[in-house]
């Protein structure tokens, strides 16, 4: 009995999610030294509010990264959706209808990425780098330049600012929790979720096992766009304004949340709980650094270092585990892609079996 209890405890401690909880507690403890108001229940619940839009995007991006791709256009999709929504409303449409249209716009932009990547088989990095710029430009074009649309009805702005009913839980946080639950169910509890993992582990094998790879890949990018649009609506609601340059520096936090959350940057593994905890960690850290009067840009040094540190630690652990089967030294992502792609090479079993050039060969 005790032996199995210890085994269970050991398994819990060995999980990345447990490390994240410890990190959150450490960051929280540091924050209490910065302000005695930190531990207020109200503050603890409220500190998530400005980061809900990060969390929503991180959920969508997690899906994409688990499938072995990347989507860096999400912050621009957010801006287009927010601006399009505001523009629809500004032209006299009902506010909720405008919200719906904003979501459709975001999903459409994501689907464009998906078609280019999934059907034309283009590299997601290059495509979304292009659409990152293209969509940002589009947001400005819709607004006709700079400026902003404001004056949304309070029914809408309370989404980002107010609490749910008579409770002290902010509506934004409740929405994020609900979205997390849905994503956790879809990814861990449905066939579609298994498809996503399968494609991320080995796309070619997934195709041979009859998984509709193309359709799934287009879908995940559409979902990523949809989540960016939802994030855009909450962003507009929280800041009570829709601007074309919205969230233009949020990409770091979103990518950091996904990677810190334990999602393998090369695809194939990761959990939604981890991503959720990483979003909380980033929110607590930024909140604490804000209390300590550290500017947003300097805070980014810490978040950026965490992002790189998380990957480095992951790589170190993996290298220690399979020292003898370690593949080359760079661009695993491309080599994995080659293997998954049309070249159809056998799976990675041999890497580095003494085929390295002898010293002084060159």
């Amino acid at each position, binding site marked *: 009995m005790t032996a199995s209890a210890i085994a269970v405890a050991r398994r819990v401690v060995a999980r990345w999610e447990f490390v994240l909880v410890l990190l959150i507690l450490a960051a929280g403890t540091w924050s209490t030294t910065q302000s005695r108001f930190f531990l207020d229940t109200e503050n603890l619940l409220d500190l998530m509010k400005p980061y809900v839009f990060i969390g929503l995007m991180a959920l969508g991006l997690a899906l994409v990264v688990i499938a072995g791709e990347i989507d860096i256009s999400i912050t621009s999709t957010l801006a287009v959706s927010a601006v399009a929504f505001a523009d629809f409303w500004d032209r006299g449409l009902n506010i909720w209808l405008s919200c719906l249209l904003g979501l459709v716009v975001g999903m459409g932009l994501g689907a464009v990425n998906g078609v*280019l990547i999934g059907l*034309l088989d283009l*590299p997601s990095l290059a495509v979304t*780098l292009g659409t990152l710029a*293209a*969509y*940002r430009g589009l947001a400005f074009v819709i607004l006709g330049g700079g400026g902003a649309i404001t004056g949304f009805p309070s029914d809408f702005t309370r989404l980002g600012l107010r609490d749910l009913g008579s409770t002290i839980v902010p509506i934004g946080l409740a929405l994020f929790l609900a979205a997390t639950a849905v994503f956790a169910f879809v990814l861990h509890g449905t066939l579609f979720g298994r498809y996503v993992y399968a494609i991320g582990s080995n796309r070619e094998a997934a195709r041979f096992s009859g998984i509709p790879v193309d359709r799934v890949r287009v879908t995940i990018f559409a979902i990523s766009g949809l989540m960016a649009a939802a994030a855009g609506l909450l962003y507009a609601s929280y800041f009570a304004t829709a601007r074309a340059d919205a969230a233009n520096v949020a990409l770091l936090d979103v990518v*950091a949340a996904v990677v810190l959350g334990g999602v393998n940057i090369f695809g194939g593994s990761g959990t939604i709980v981890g991503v959720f905890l990483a979003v909380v960690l980033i929110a607590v850290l930024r909140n604490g650094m804000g209390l300590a009067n550290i500017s947003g840009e300097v805070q980014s040094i810490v978040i950026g270092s965490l*992002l790189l540190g998380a990957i*480095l630690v992951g790589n170190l652990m993996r290298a220690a585990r399979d020292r003898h089967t370690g593949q080359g030294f760079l661009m695993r992502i491309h080599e994995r892609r080659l293997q998954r792609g049309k070249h159809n090479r056998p799976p990675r079993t041999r890497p580095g079996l003494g085929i390295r050039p002898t010293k002084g060969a060159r």
Partner: protein
Amino acid sequence: MTAARLSLQTVATAAFRLRELGIAIALLVAIAIFAVQAESFMTVGNWRNISVSVAVVLAVAVGQTMVVLTRNIDLSVGSIVGLSAFISADTLSTHHGLPIAGVAAIAVAVGIACGLFNGLLVTVGRVPAIIATLGTLYIFRGLVHEVSGGTQVLAFELPASFKAFALREVLGIPALAVIAIAVAVLGAAMLRWTHWGRDFYAIGSNPEAARLAGIPVARRVLLAFTISGGLAGLGGFMFAARFAGVSASSGSGFEFDVISAVVIGGVNVFGGVGTVLGAALGALLIAVIENGFTLLKINEFWKTAFQGFAIVTAVTVDALVTRRIQEALRQRRRREARDAARAEASA
């Protein structure tokens, strides 16, 4: 048989040449349109403007070309430009006696340090280039804010000799453009004739094959990132000279000008294909369009949208053309094998 295969490879090479020709034609069309539409476009003063704004992008784009050739990417160049511009200009503002070359040396040194950091993350740390340089984009930018502490380096704090430098001309060409041309020629020569320059192409074409062929892949990739950082540092110096002042947000978003110049110029994001000449044409096209839009009073954000669509289009076209050529080569090879087998059977 050999002749047939050779001719197909010639076709492949010609396709890539055609790619550069396509950009050149697009450039000429853009110039023609703006020349007709905007009366001040074809003036010496305007072209001096264009040449200076191309210069900064081009210097950085040469380094980016090398990185992209090795099938990597450097997103952090905008922040490196900002960091090196701020540190060098800030040093100059407190040490007026510093020679121009000294200022440039400081900027390049800062850039090399940043590039080395990126390169080590990618090679030793095995962090994918996109994630590594996305992280350092924010880290280096944060450092600029940390170093500056919210202050700026303003024009009046800089010595007159430094401000005169940007206005100096050699044979009617602005000094900054001369620097960029020198960098481009040198970069093109190295990619063409040095063995490590050829290694970049080999690594980008097939990293595994390059490794098996005995190319020290990690060292070459590290070199590419270091050069990219150093040239971004040089770009920072040119940036400071051009605007005679630096703020903490200087150079943010600059990576887009550089990457779109490189990608539009035909440097394939899959690695292994591309030239400095192409990148230069791409940089020129972007600068001309930006300049023309400004003269025609078209909202500058159309430029951002244009760049994005141009990147996506270039990537799509490159991928489709490459695939078509590979397919043709494969079919040709299959046909040759069949013919050879038939000839053997009849013999």
